[in-house]
């Protein structure tokens, strides 16, 4: 049995929430640098330089890279041979999120009721996806997910006859419609297969594919590259002012589905990529 204390989970979540919101990853900074080199027009270059400068100002002052510090989305992956000592795990996640948003001076962006819309004041509740595993594996993946890009996401129950071309057209149309709204250069997570609720989760997981330890499948990589090239030729560009860098990445996850269905979901992330895997 692996034993983990309740307080250790709280502290790790709190610290990680603050870190992902205020400290840009080296991968993100590298993406800005490559995009600056890749752009031809001066406005696009300038916009990207400012985005990079913004990330550095945030880190130096430990203030959020973006004021929309998001909904906290948590993927809890826990083995049956892990024991949490001192409390219930979901309460530890709630408390870690609450403390992170409070102590990190992060924005509280959750309303308790979508119709009456009163702010909960502590950014609770997070959205938790639990996966029970074999053995003593225990990790938590945390995302700060902004709403500007979330609002531009889409799901379609396509027909099997639509095929790969239909899927690609749906992605291109969705990103075209989104334009400047989701703060490009964006990351596009595409879920294909499963069912109505499953495909939405696949698309969300696709946004964190880089930390999911999924073996490379060359046939999927080829589709991702093709869609990425199509999207970057749309001339949306950084912040929608035109240019070659409309998307940083396209990531696809697939699962089996029903003979009658071809579910496709597209989850969009802004340029500020904020996620982390905490391994216990």
């Amino acid at each position, binding site marked *: 049995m692996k034993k983990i204390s309740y307080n250790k989970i709280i502290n790790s979540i709190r610290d990680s929430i603050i870190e992902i919101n205020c400290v840009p990853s080296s991968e993100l900074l590298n993406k800005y640098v490559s995009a600056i080199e890749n752009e031809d027009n001066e*406005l696009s270059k300038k*916009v990207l330089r*400012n*985005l990079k*400068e*913004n*990330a550095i*100002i*945030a880190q130096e*002052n*430990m*203030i*959020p*890279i*973006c*004021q*929309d*510090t998001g909904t906290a989305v948590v993927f809890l992956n826990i083995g049956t041979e892990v024991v949490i000592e001192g409390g219930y795990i979901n309460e530890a996640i709630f408390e870690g999120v609450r403390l992170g948003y409070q102590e990190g*001076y*992060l*924005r*509280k*962006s959750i309303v308790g009721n979508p119709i009456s*819309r009163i*702010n909960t*004041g502590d950014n609770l509740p997070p959205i938790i996806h639990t996966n029970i595993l074999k053995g003593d594996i225990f990790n938590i993946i945390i995302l700060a997910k*902004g709403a*500007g890009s979330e*609002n531009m996401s889409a799901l379609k129950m396509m027909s099997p006859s639509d095929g790969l071309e239909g899927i690609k057209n749906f992605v291109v149309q969705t990103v075209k419609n989104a*334009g*400047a*709204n989701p*703060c490009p250069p964006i990351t596009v997570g595409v879920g294909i297969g499963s069912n109505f609720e499953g495909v939405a989760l696949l698309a969300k997981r696709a946004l964190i594919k880089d930390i999911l330890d999924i073996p490379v499948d060359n046939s999927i990589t080829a589709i991702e590259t093709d869609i990425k090239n199509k999207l970057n030729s749309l*001339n949306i*560009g950084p*912040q*929608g*002012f*035109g240019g070659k860098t409309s998307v940083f990445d396209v990531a696809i996850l697939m699962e089996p589905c029903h003979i009658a269905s071809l579910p496709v979901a597209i989850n969009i992330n*802004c*340029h*500020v990529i904020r996620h982390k895997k905490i391994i216990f």
Partner: protein
Amino acid sequence: MKLNTPIDKEKLKKLKSGDELFISGVIYTARDSAHKLLIEKINNNLPLPFDLNGAVIYYAGPSPTKPGNVVGSIGPTTSYRMDKYTPDILKQGVAILIGKGLRGLLVKESLIEHSAIYCAALGGAGALMGSKIKKITVVAFPELGPEAIFKLEVEDFPVIVVNDLNGNDIYECH
């Protein structure tokens, strides 16, 4: 080009879509919930929390200010959500709207009708935008938290003109 608030709408005639504009003076934040409440006040002829004539409205909701700092992060939110309210806001004489993303046709027509312009701030660059702010105070609806109306004292606050008075739109020109 540099402009001081309150904005003299005559000066907006020179601006073209794609131009950089630096605003100094006072600008006010208002996003979804604050717009809803402002429109309720306008419809009921109640006094408004700030003078909208010649005003600059920034669609934004800041992160909390850390002790010792002037302001938190404060980049723009997506503008289309305010489209429904915008023609009625423009009737009050607002001169400049700041947000990000494409506006609807009714907003574009209303901007021209009222000689106002729409500009974009850098999305996802809240720390950088915050560095141009000298002071922040709540002026209305504190119960809305980040959606309250904040008065921002700014110096050379950088924006890019999206919709100019001649009907041009930087998002649709490429």
